[in-house]
């Protein structure tokens, strides 16, 4: 009797999850399959693809045939674009961590009644579209923007700072945009922290640094890792922020992929680059799973 009940339950489970599964298969796996297929085809003359199988796109990802003497070399332009994306994403992750940890700590240590209000404040930026938030940042840091006007007004600087169109501008923008994604999981982790552990370690003459490194960080670690992944993954594919704040002078991977689908008219290369990006993200996720399972077995 009980087995048929279990079967019934399993069937219900499948039925209930069917809409989500169907959506996943069609909306995620379907397009991905198309991208994967296109990466092995020949670019059409003005757009799209021609159905001729070739590995040329993959060759183009890593190597370039010199346009003038036909010699083949590593595509250092492509590599430096990928490297810039990885570097800026790592820096964004570190910056959001440095700004996010005190914020998360502050919220987690408020009285229970206030916490909801503070968390609510953190989520407010999500109410607005990413593009609009990025333009808002631009209005703050641009040449005749708020920041420069304020600094000039109080006499701290003589000439306006040129922050726009630099990597700094991109970092400011991405840190601002992705900060909530770091704060929320860290808050959840700190929230679980038993404050008595800290009191106990102080009673046992631990220094403040020791308390941070031996008590707080190990307990908060899952939150830090989850937050880092949540920040790193969208950062590396960022398109709007580098385009608007970085001034388009130096591409990130997202912009490079767009070039192939737009003016470059090379969809297969764009598709191959997208898959490489997916690979980088997967490596980051595998790293996450590894690290988090290790911390579980430690605990």
């Amino acid at each position, binding site marked *: 009797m009980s087995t048929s009940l279990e079967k019934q339950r399993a069937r219900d489970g499948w039925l209930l999850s069917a809409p989500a599964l169907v959506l996943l298969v069609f909306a995620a796996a379907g397009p991905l399959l198309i991208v994967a297929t296109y990466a092995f085809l020949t*670019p059409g*003359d*003005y*757009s*799209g693809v021609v159905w001729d199988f070739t590995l040329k796109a993959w060759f183009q990802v890593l190597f*370039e045939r010199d*346009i*003038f003497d036909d010699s083949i070399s590593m595509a*250092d*332009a*492509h590599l*430096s*674009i990928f490297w810039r994306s990885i570097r800026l994403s790592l820096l964004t992750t570190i910056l959001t961590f440095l700004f996010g940890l005190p914020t998360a700590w502050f919220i987690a240590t408020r009285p229970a009644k206030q916490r909801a209000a503070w968390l609510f404040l953190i989520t407010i930026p999500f109410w607005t579209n990413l593009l609009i938030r990025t333009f808002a940042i631009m209005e703050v840091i*641009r*040449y*005749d923007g708020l920041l420069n006007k304020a600094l000039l007004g109080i006499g701290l600087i003589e000439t306006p700072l*040129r922050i*726009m*169109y630099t990597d700094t501008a991109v970092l400011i923008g991405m840190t601002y945009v992705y900060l909530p994604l770091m704060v929320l999981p860290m808050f959840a982790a700190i929230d679980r922290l038993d404050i008595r552990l800290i009191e106990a370690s102080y009673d046992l003459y631990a220094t403040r640094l020791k308390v941070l490194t031996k008590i707080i960080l190990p307990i908060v670690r899952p939150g830090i890792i989850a937050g880092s992944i949540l920040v790193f993954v969208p950062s590396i594919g960022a398109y709007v922020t580098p385009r*608007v704040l970085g*001034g*388009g*002078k*130096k*591409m990130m991977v997202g*912009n*490079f992929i767009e*070039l*192939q689908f*737009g*003016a*470059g*008219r*090379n969809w297969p290369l764009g598709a191959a680059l997208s898959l490489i990006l997916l690979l980088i993200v997967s490596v980051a996720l595998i790293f996450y799973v590894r690290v988090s399972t290790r911390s579980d077995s430690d605990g």
Partner: protein
Amino acid sequence: MKKTLILSAVAALIAGAAHAEGELNIYNWGNYTNPDLIKKFEEAYDVKVTITDYDSNTTALTKVEAGGHGFDIVVPSNGYVKIFIDKGLLLETRPDQMENFKNMDPTWVNVGWDMGRHYTVPWQWGSTGVAVNTSTYSGDINTSAIFLDPPAELAGKINVVPEMADVMAMAIYYVGGTDSCTEDKEILKKARDVLVAAKPSWLSMDYGTTDKLSSGEWVASVNWNGSTFRARLANPTVQYGYPVEGYPLWMDSVAVLADAKNVENAKLFQNFIMDPENAAMISAFARYSNGIMGSDAFMPADMKTAPEINPPAELAAAGKFAEACPKAVQDIHTAIWTELQK
């Protein structure tokens, strides 16, 4: 019950199709269509017009080629009109036999992309040149050296719009090429070298030029004439230069799609915009020339004398229409462009 529902749905569909007689779906560049013009057309012919935006020729081409778009009219640029025609995507509506064709400036009748105007009607045309804030730099601005070999006063404060075809064409003209799709490796190499050498003097490669030029954030930019016009109206020190080495001209033309559902209304629209008064409304909105004779009389006064709209005779000849380049040349351009932005 179910049956009635399906039946009424079918009935609604049929009614919808029948109703389509009074509709027109225009697929045009964003922020480019004068709403007053559309209102006038709707009232004159009792047609409901819907406008959908695109942001590049490739976007428009891809979407139209995919089919099922429901658009009647598209407005591609010169080089792309030919591609649309060659792919069989346009309807031969013979604007040259329409009533208002007599108003079309003869200059624009026998054009490379639509000889004799069997398919398209001019919408607007303009040039890509250089905009310079003359309060910072008072030298000659009619040269691509403004951004390819910048004077010291401008270095570090220059913007270049990220329009690959335009920027490549200007660089090729600057180093002595005459055809923007040249296969001459020597010329292409020189163009690359001059771009790569100039890039450290650029502040950015971005759009939004009108506002940032008038605010002084950029003191120079590769820019379109109409946009520079609007910037000058906000800040009189912004001037437009026509590079003597050569600069790209473009013309966007109104075409009817081969799979249009409202062909008659689309033809009416083609004829409608060849009326000088209506053509003037197009220009009054986006500030570019239109190609219809007699439209000047209906234009805002500030357009008749605007240097951005009326190039000096000695520089007018340096403007060249660029075709969409063949794939092999395009790949070289993309490679240079990637190297430039790495």
